[in-house]
């Protein structure tokens, strides 16, 4: 190590960092703990952090009422499906933008991003009518295509910034060897771009998993993902904090765990061209 750091300083910094980290994480921890309380304890004052009667009745209740597995599988299908489809469409575009830029490349990119700025609710009825006529309401295919389109700009943008970092000489060399364009992309570019693609994939799976407007409004039961599952536990008549916490924990746990396990990959490619 080049820099020497006194243990004392390290201790102080650690204490600060840990305190702040726990404060940031606390709402999630609190939700998790509340999910093991009874409804009465969940709203009791003073609240108790750990010393309450631990119960799993909320999970049992949630499980008996809704088909968690169905919603979970829908979430997986929709978020993975839309991301992979998005990647397939976006990789060539990002490649072209990064390696054969024109004067208008930046404008095209910005235009793509600006399509994300329309408030979705303004377009709900047109899309709903189109979906009705196309028989796409409450289908996974319908949702996959909408989420693909919604996240496509971000995917293109992320890949573009990542591809730009790849030195052009390597491609030149490949071209010298007589590689065709397709081969160039498959054998040369893609392996180098794997970290960028991986983190794009992760980020977009997260975004698609948490998307709650379209997924809620365009599904009823067969294709309903976890966002719809949550909507059946928020604010009924009567107390609901504990059951809501249990449902919330079940809805966010998969993506949280995925995020934690893959955080290295996520961070590695999540530069958006911020690093130069």
């Amino acid at each position, binding site marked *: 190590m080049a820099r020497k750091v006194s243990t004392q300083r390290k*201790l102080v910094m650690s204490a600060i960092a840990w305190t702040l980290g726990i404060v940031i994480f606390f709402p*999630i921890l609190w939700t998790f703990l509340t999910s093991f309380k009874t409804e009465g304890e969940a709203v009791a004052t003073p609240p108790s952090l750990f010393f309450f009667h631990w119960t799993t009745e909320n999970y049992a209740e949630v499980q008996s009422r809704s088909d968690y597995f169905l919603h979970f599988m829908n979430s997986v299908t929709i978020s993975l499906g839309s991301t992979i489809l998005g990647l397939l469409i976006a990789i*060539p575009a990002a490649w072209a933008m990064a390696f054969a830029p024109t004067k208008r490349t930046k404008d095209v990119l910005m235009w793509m991003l600006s399509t994300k700025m329309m*408030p979705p609710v*303004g377009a709900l009825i047109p899309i709903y009518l189109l979906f009705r006529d196309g028989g796409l309401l409450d289908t996974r295919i319908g949702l996959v295509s909408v989420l693909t389109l919604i996240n496509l700009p971000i995917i293109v943008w992320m890949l573009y910034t990542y591809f730009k970092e790849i030195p052009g000489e390597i491609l030149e060399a490949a071209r010298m060897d007589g590689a065709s364009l397709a081969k160039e992309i498959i054998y040369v570019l893609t392996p180098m771009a794997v970290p960028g693609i991986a983190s794009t994939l992760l980020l977009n799976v*997260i975004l698609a998993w948490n998307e709650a407007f379209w997924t809620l409004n365009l599904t009823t039961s067969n294709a309903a993902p976890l966002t719809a599952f949550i909507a059946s536990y928020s604010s009924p008549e009567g107390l609901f904090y504990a059951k809501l916490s249990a449902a919330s924990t079940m809805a966010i746990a998969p993506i949280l765990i995925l995020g934690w396990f893959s955080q290295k990959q996520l961070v590695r490619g999540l530069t958006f061209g911020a690093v130069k």
Partner: protein
Amino acid sequence: MATTHTRSAARLMMAPSVILLFAWMIVPLAMTIYFSLLRYNLLMPGTEEFAGIMNYQFFLTDPAFFDALSNTLILVGGVLAITIIGGIAFALLLDQPIFGQGIVRILVIAPFFVMPTVSALVWKNMFMNPVNGLFGWLARAMGFQPIDFLASVPLLSVIIIVSWQWLPFATLIMLTALQSLDEEQKEAAEMDGAGFVSRFIYIVLPHMARAITVVILIETIFLLSVFAEILVTTNGGPGTQSTNLTYLVYAQALLQFDIGGASAGGIVAVVLANIVAIFLVRLIGKNLEG
């Protein structure tokens, strides 16, 4: 020549993305523009008729419109300020050698994975509620009158919740940028006797300019259409104090089912968003060039 060949190939490769996004933009847009010129309420079928610019007139003269406009800007600006400053602070902290760095990082990035609806529900009920919430309890335990967050500072409450969700993203980007800063550069500055503050201003901050730009760009896109957090916590109120443009359009579309009015609102929002986009392009153009 290779370049012409590459260029046409490039066009071909961009085509699917461009065409799809164009269709995704133009079809709903055309329908929305069409609807915005009609008197069209979903609840009263058979009364549709051409209404000219009536819907725009009503939307733009709505007393709530200017509130919504300024709330949107305050919301975006507020969250950007908090997440950027907070993100830099966290990044600097996490860049230090500390015990259990990996775990702290996991704790800090966790909010990013939480669904907006869930986080809004949790904050509203378990923290900000002045009677049953944790903040209220803390205030009383320390002998203060609990603050009624959602009623007395509604917009700030929404800003806090949204900032909590986006802080991890800013932190991650800033941290990546910070870690790419040349170790030797930092050391050299330290040798020269530069204090923390001057090192930060003259070396770290310029280096982070691009990261900050990126955070502004990406977050703005998402923050312009913040919706679930407002719906769950304040319903845009009290009055119109936490109504943003998206929420205003929502109220037209899904409370009144006034599709004409909502479409006009949607179009107004798109125009405004594009003004922001042009502004952003200028900003990005400067910082991301090269």
